[in-house]
Each structure stands twice: as C-alpha cells, then as structure tokens.
C-alpha cells in the first residue's frame, strides 16, 4: 500500500485513494467545493490545491491519487495564496446577497472567506455580471444563477444518483451557468438533496425558504418514518416547530433523503392535525372521549360478547404502540380477535432509497406477531365481512389499507386512532388523536431488519399523548388496565422485542 506524508503525518492507504481522502483520514481539513464523497470527482473548483513534492505546480487534492513516498503540504505560503486567489475568483462576480440568501450561516463561501480569504473585492458591485435570480426549478427548488460557483455538484447528482439528467452547464467560460435541460423539469423524487449539496445559496428549498435562519435551528438525530427504508434523519427545529429534515448519513441506510421523506414533518402543522378527539363528528376533549371509547368497548362486549370486538395492529405504528394495541386485546378486552398480520411487499423501488412499502414498521409488527399470534389477515377479513363483528379498534392508515377487501363498515362501530384528519377514510364513532413520531420516542424495524428509534424534538399539542398512553388510559376505563402508565413500565415491557 502506498505511504503518503501530509504535513509531516504519515499514513498507508490502498492505491487509488486521493490526497484529500488521505488528509481526511489524518484529520487534516482541506477546503473543497466540488468534491463530494458520494459523487464522482470533477476538479472544477480548484479550492483543494496542495503542494506536492517534485510536482512543478500545485495539485488538486481531490483528484490526485496518492503514490508511495509522496509528500504533500497544506500549510505553505503557496497553498494559502492559492486558496485566497481561488476565493477571489469565485467571488469576483458573486452578488454577496447574504442578507436575502437562505444559505447564509451554512455557506462555504462565507466560511472559507473568513478562514482563507478576507480580501477586499476588486470588482465594483455595479461591474459584476448579473444573471437570473430566483428561477423556479421544479416543485421544491429555486435557482439563483448569480450565486452559483459552477462546482457542478448538482449536475453530477442528477447524472449519477437519480440518473434523470435534468441539469447541465450552458454557455462558455465566464458566461457559463447552470441550466435545466430543454424539455425537462427538475422534479425527480430526490430534488431537495440538491439544495443541500449545493455548497452555496444557488439552489435553495422553496419549502424552507425564509422560514428560519439556520443559526437558530437546533438539530437532533432521528429516523424517517415515511417508508420501510428507515433513513436516518436530522430534525432541524426551533421553539417547538420543526423546520426541515436533513439526512444523517448512515452506511446501513442512507446518504440522501427523498423529497417525500423530507416533507413528512408537514403532518405536524397541517391544518387537519387532530388536536381534539372526535365523537360522532363532534369535537370533544380527549379525556372524555377516551371514556366514551371505553364505554363503546364495554357495551359491545356486554351485548354481544368480547369476540365481537376486533383490534388491529398497524405497520405504521411503532413497536411500543402496537404492543399497547396487542395488550389491549389480550388483557383488557380478552378477545382473541387481534390481527397483527399485514404482509407487505418490500424492497427498494427505484434503486436509490424509496421502498415499495410505505409503512415504516411492518417488520416490527412481525416481532409482535411472533409473541401474540392473532388472526391472519385473510381470517380477519372473513370475520369482519361475516357480520359478527360489532366494533373495530384500529389505527387509521392500517384500516384504510384493508379498505378494498372489506365490505360496508357502516353497521360496525369503530374507534380510530389518527394523527391527521386526512388519514381518516371511514366514518367513525370515535376518533382519538395521538402524538406523531416527531413528538415521542418509538422503535421501528426497517425492511432490512434494522431496529432504530425516533427521538422526540417538539412537544405534542396540548393534551395529545403518545398512543400507548392513550390506550393505557382507555384500558383503565374499561376496568382491566394494561398497565403502561409511564416510560419505565413501557421500557420493561418492550425490552424483549428490542434486544
């Protein structure tokens, strides 16, 4: 293996590695714009220049492969001058729009200018080349050509990752600019990654635009529950509001994040977010609604026996919440009509991330099925269609997923658990809200069998509690509590599933 020395530190790396990668392994930071670890090397920005012994001039670290005995330096006067000069070139026609630029605060131009530049501009503002500003680019993006430094990261992303080739560099030399190819529009399923990988404020997100300055945002790692891929995310929030979701790269799950996943936080603020319960279409405080639901359960069990009640698990719920549902059936209602069987087709749909299964926890549900057994889905549907069932307790999306197979539900009463009104597909006697995945901790098993948990970042609306708490209260009202009152009890009970 070639041995390379950078700034006096030596490392062995396999042939083919570049100086930039070697420096990274040694903990030496080399500034870069066009290099991105997940994209091909283009060497357009020249920001990463380093001095290499015996080379006649500076070499770019991102594209120069290491050779045995190579000695490179990143701290010489020539390197410092090169960085300063490259920055001056990049900023020559730059509008320095920072006050109206969403990138400010996480912009490499700002950061490197403070670290390596600090030059006075030699181009008067009125002499700078003006280009198109805030051009709409697809559903989620806005393009500002003046701010672009032509690193081509965005072009390479569309060519190499999504393979949709929407972007290209048009024009020549200092008149070149990023353009959308004719006849195309930038609306692939991963377009928001471009706003993120653009090192400057040329591509910005229309959704996040002007909502919040990035330096106010707090960050916390969590897991996306948009599909079975289980991508790791970073939730950016401030003052009890989530503003955006970013990927938190994990070799086991994801480098990028799909647009739909990035928008999952919208459910929190949606106009149809349930903050109160609904009983016969009338809004009601949550506590009395839980008592009402318990009354419905008691009535059904008293009149037609516990076997006339069905409880459905849900591939959309965390292990915690499904456990509470299973316990509700087994301990509290004493019915054997529990269904935890939701077979779903899984696998990467587009060769990148998005999974065929849009439910995040079908595999977590299988763990519970191994312990609680319950009905097969076929048997359940037959049972419901047979007309012997008087009451269904279910999470909204799980019940909707069976919609096609079920006959009219109009003479069956339902207690439905939901986060937003738009999830509701059926008329229901009683709808109980619960805390969304950004508001409570929950364990999910992705399509590969990886167990991960979400972290709460914001508080649920007043009075809205995690589903397991809601179900625990519900069970106490029926007189046979499932005893899941606090986090400690919950932890003990799910420990067997989350080993």
């Amino acid at each position: 293996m070639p041995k390379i020395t950078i700034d006096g530190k030596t490392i062995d790396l396999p042939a083919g590695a570049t100086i930039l990668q070697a420096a990274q392994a040694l903990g030496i930071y080399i500034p870069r714009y066009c290099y991105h670890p997940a994209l091909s090397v283009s060497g357009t920005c020249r920001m990463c220049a380093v001095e290499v012994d015996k080379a006649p001039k500076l070499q770019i670290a991102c594209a120069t492969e290491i050779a045995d005995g190579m000695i490179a330096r990143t701290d010489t006067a020539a390197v410092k001058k090169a960085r300063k000069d490259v920055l001056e070139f990049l900023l020559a026609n730059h509008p320095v729009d920072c006050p109206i630029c969403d990138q400010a605060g996480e912009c490499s131009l700002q950061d490197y200018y403070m670290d390596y530049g600090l030059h006075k501009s030699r181009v008067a503002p009125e002499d700078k080349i003006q280009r198109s500003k805030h051009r709409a680019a697809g559903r989620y993006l806005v393009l500002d050509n003046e701010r672009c430094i032509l690193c081509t990261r965005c072009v390479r992303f569309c060519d190499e990752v999504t393979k949709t080739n929407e972007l290209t560099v048009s024009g020549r030399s200092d008149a070149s600019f990023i353009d959308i190819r004719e006849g195309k529009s930038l609306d692939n399923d991963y377009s928001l990654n471009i706003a993120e990988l653009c090192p400057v404020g040329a591509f910005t997100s229309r959704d996040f635009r002007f909502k919040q300055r990035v330096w106010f945002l707090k960050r916390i790692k969590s897991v996306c529950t948009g599909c079975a891929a289980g991508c790791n995310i970073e939730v950016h929030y401030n003052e009890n509001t989530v503003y955006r979701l970013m990927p938190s790269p994990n070799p086991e799950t994801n480098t990028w994040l799909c647009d739909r996943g990035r928008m999952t936080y919208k459910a929190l603020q949606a106009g149809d977010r349930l903050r109160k319960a609904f009983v016969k279409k009338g809004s009601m405080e949550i506590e009395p609604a839980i008592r009402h639901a318990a009354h419905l359960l008691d009535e059904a069990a008293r009149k037609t026996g516990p076997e006339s009640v069905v409880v459905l698990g849900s591939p959309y719920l965390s292990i915690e919440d499904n456990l509470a549902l299973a316990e509700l059936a087994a301990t509290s209602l004493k019915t054997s009509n529990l269904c935890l069987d939701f077979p779903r087709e899984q696998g990467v749909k587009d060769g990148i991330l998005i999974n065929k299964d849009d439910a995040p926890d079908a595999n977590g549900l299988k763990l519970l099925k191994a312990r609680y057994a319950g009905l097969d889905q076929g048997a359940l549907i037959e049972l419901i269609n047979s007309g012997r069932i008087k009451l269904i307790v279910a999470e909204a999306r799980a019940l909707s997923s069976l919609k096609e197979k079920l006959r009219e539900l109009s003479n069956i009463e339902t207690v439905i658990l939901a986060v937003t009104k738009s999830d509701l597909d059926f008329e229901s006697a009683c709808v109980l809200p619960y805390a969304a995945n950004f508001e409570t901790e929950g364990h999910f098993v992705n399509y590969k069998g990886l167990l991960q948990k979400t972290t709460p970042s914001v508080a649920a609306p007043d009075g809205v509690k995690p589903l397991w708490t809601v179900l625990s209260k519900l069970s106490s009202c029926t007189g046979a509590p499932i005893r899941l009152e606090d986090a400690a009890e919950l932890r003990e009970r799910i420990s067997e599933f989350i080993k």
Partner: protein
Amino acid sequence: MIEIKKVNNRPLNLLERIYVWEIFKGFLVTARHFFVNLFCPGKIITIQYPEITRPLEHAAKRRTRHRLKMRANGTPKCVACFLCATACPAFCIHIEAGEFTSSQVEKYPAVFDVDLSRCVMCGMCVEACPEDAIAMDTEVIPGGVLKREDMYLTRNKLLQNMPGDPSIKGAANRLA
C-alpha cells in the same frame, strides 16, 4: 462628572444634638426653593417629563426610538435577514420574513416588532444591520406611556424616513 464627597463622621456637637437649630437650617433650604420656584420659574431644575424633554447632545441622539428606513419606492429597506434579532441582547425584536413576488429583492419583513419595554437601547441592532435599514435617530425617548401596547412597535409604526433619506447603502438595494 461624578464628584467624590468624603463624609465626616465626627461626633455631633452640643448644638447639633439639641436638634432644633438643625431643623431650622433644613427649613431654610426648603423655604429658599419654595420662593425661588414661586418668583423665578426660569430657575426651576425639575423638568416635567415626558411633556417636556431636554435637547439631546451628540451621540445620545443615536440611542433613541428605532425606525425602519424606506427605499425611494416606499418599500422597507429591511430584508428580514434576522441579524438585528440575532445581535439583540434583550431578545426584543420579532421578525417574520415574507416573500416578494413582484420585486427582485425576494425578501421583506412581513412582521417586524420591537418591544421597547424590553429594549435596553444598546444600539446593537443598528450596528448589525447589513442593509442600513434600522436606525435609532428619531430623538424620541421611549417611556412615559400609559398603556403597555404603546411600548410595542410594529412594522408600520417603525417605517419612517427622516429628511435626507433614503440612503443608498445596503447590498439588496441594487435589486430594488
């Protein structure tokens, strides 16, 4: 200039301990003020603030009530960059950004509130502004109001140009 006065803590002498003479001296001071105020009102030291104020000197003028400057076309110069709110040590500036669709200056403050009851008049907001959009040169000293709301300035109360404005400083101005 604050002068230092050394207090002489010697024991009281007989005349002072008798008390009556000292009381009489005190009355003389009160009586002098009474007659001066009665016959020569020009010499009264007390000012009837807030109805009457003293003219401000030099830099003190730059620590008075805020205003937001306007461009020649009447739009606010402020672009809701949040730098003043970030610099403010009293957390009394509340901004919500809006998006201009008609102007090249994409951004404007849809909401811009300054809570003067929390403001410490430090001037950091003026210092921080990259657009030269906020100033504290109205020469109005906040305070002496009867309602709390009167200490709460909203965007429309803040927007006010002074003679000589609009200035042309600020990066976003080229787009206006």
